[in-house]
């Protein structure tokens, strides 16, 4: 059991060393910093500056889609097409371990990079380090990252092709955002606004700037549950396919 845990962490390390080699991590850091920080300051009020966390979220989503699509597709896709999965499956490693470690490594990288970039906003907006809306925003982003990573993973497992899956996931994710009503929960912007609005009202006793609708606890819970539930479903399907069905030749 200990050896299996060790193998899980060893696989995560393998994944990070292989797929974040130069210059991938550097490109990712630049893209993340650019998308998060290249935003104007909309709300000038010092005590309401936390509202700036909500603006520019659409631009963040665009780059997030590209970044996640590229890195997840590269990791899963090229390891299948180039035969690295075949090599790993020659060692005493469980298929589930390989799947879980790849996903965990990629998700962790995205969450850490985006959180680090987002935390610069604490200084830029002179927020209190314990400003709850900062952490709510990070939670909202993490949920969206989870959804994006899960969806891209499924697409790449089905297509087994790096390039096709990058395009397919980018089209799907960005397409959904642009087709659906931005205030609906089908859209990341809609879900983010609901979470932000509800917790903004609770913590600051006022609706966030620019949001006219008052969201309830049910709305906030629904907005958080949707990406969680969809991600969980996709990951279970992906894991079952990878562990029980996928053939490697």
């Amino acid at each position, binding site marked *: 059991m200990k*050896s299996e845990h*060790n*193998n899980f962490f*060893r696989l995560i*390390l*393998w994944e990070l*060393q*292989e797929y974040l*080699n*130069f210059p991938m991590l550097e490109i990712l850091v630049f893209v993340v910093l650019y998308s998060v920080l290249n935003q104007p300051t909309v709300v000038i009020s010092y005590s309401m500056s936390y509202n700036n966390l909500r603006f520019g979220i659409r631009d963040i989503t665009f780059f997030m889609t590209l970044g996640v699509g590229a890195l997840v597709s590269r990791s899963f896709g090229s*390891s299948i097409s*180039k*035969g*690295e999965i*075949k*090599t790993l*499956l*020659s*060692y*005493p*490693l*469980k298929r589930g371990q390989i799947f879980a470690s790849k996903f965990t490594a990629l998700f962790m990288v995205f969450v850490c990079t985006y959180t680090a970039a987002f935390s610069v906003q604490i200084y830029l907006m002179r927020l209190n380090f314990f400003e709850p809306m900062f952490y709510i925003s990070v939670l909202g982003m993490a949920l969206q990252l989870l959804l994006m990573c899960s969806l891209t993973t499924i697409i790449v497992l089905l297509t087994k092709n790096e390039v096709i899956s990058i395009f397919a996931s980018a089209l799907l994710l960005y397409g959904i955002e642009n087709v659906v009503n931005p205030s609906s929960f089908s859209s990341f912007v809609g879900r983010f606004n609901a979470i932000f609005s509800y917790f903004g009202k609770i913590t600051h006793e006022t609706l966030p700037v620019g949001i006219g609708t008052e969201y309830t606890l049910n709305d906030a819970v629904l907005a958080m549950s949707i990406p969680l539930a969809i991600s969980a479903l996709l990951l279970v399907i992906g894991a079952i396919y990878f562990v029980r069905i996928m*053939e*490697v*030749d």
Partner: protein
Amino acid sequence: MGFLINTNNIVKAFGNSIVLDKLNLQVPKGISGFVGRNGSGKTTTIGVLLGLLKPQGGEATIFGLDCWHNSFEIRKKIGVMHEITAYPESFTSIRFLEHVAGFYGRTNPRQKAMEALREVGLFGAKSKPIKTFSAGMFKRLGLAQALIGEPELVILDEPTANIDPSGRSSLLNKIVELHKEQDISFFITTHMLSDLEKICEWLSIIEEGKIVDQGYVKDLAQRYSANLFKIEVTQPHQFIEKLKTMKLVKNARIEGDFVYCKVHNPDEFYVELPRIATQLKLQLKGFQRVVGTIEEIYEEIIDEK
């Protein structure tokens, strides 16, 4: 006899194309060869044995364990070198082998990695990225990662492909050495029969997804190259011209001062041989039956089937 590898009527198809057609492969301990033409199903067989491909029918076992359902348990005891390998090219060889040693649960993976590199003569390249390796170094690295887990069985898929003759010879000698010193069994797939000549004890021959024959090389040689004769005669060129016109003779060649010829019916040939020599006014100095090479055994078997 207990076999390390045993398949029973394995069927594997890709779409409408049947690649393995009721394959019955048996491989005992020792150094075994698995030969067949390109596209005969060798690599697919390896895929089934390693649990990478699920057969549509039949069962395959290694160490008595089912290859698809108990793949994880099997992989604890085997090492594999695939024909087309994908090692992480940004890694140095030491880092790669350290990970592999860790996967096998070795307590001091770095030290194990160093030992493995020394074993295959790559210690000097331990800090080089794998992407800078030559084909020969790649193969040696492949052998190192296959051996690092101290396996009982090592599966090598086309180990000598794309490397120069001295590299091939060195690799094959290493296999023999490891078998003798550490009692590791090897299962080698190849279409280069000459490579197996000196090292192989057991041979399995696959053709169109079926095992056409298998057994110890000496037994196969007895069965299939009993019809090979080595003849010493004056004027061998004149003699061979006559032999080639005879229906009794399958083929004939000259090597040095000797004529080697394969016949359909050795008993009939025994009678005809002195008569031909007399007819051509040649002196028959001597003749004997010889054991064929693996290549000759293979050709004989394929011709027969």
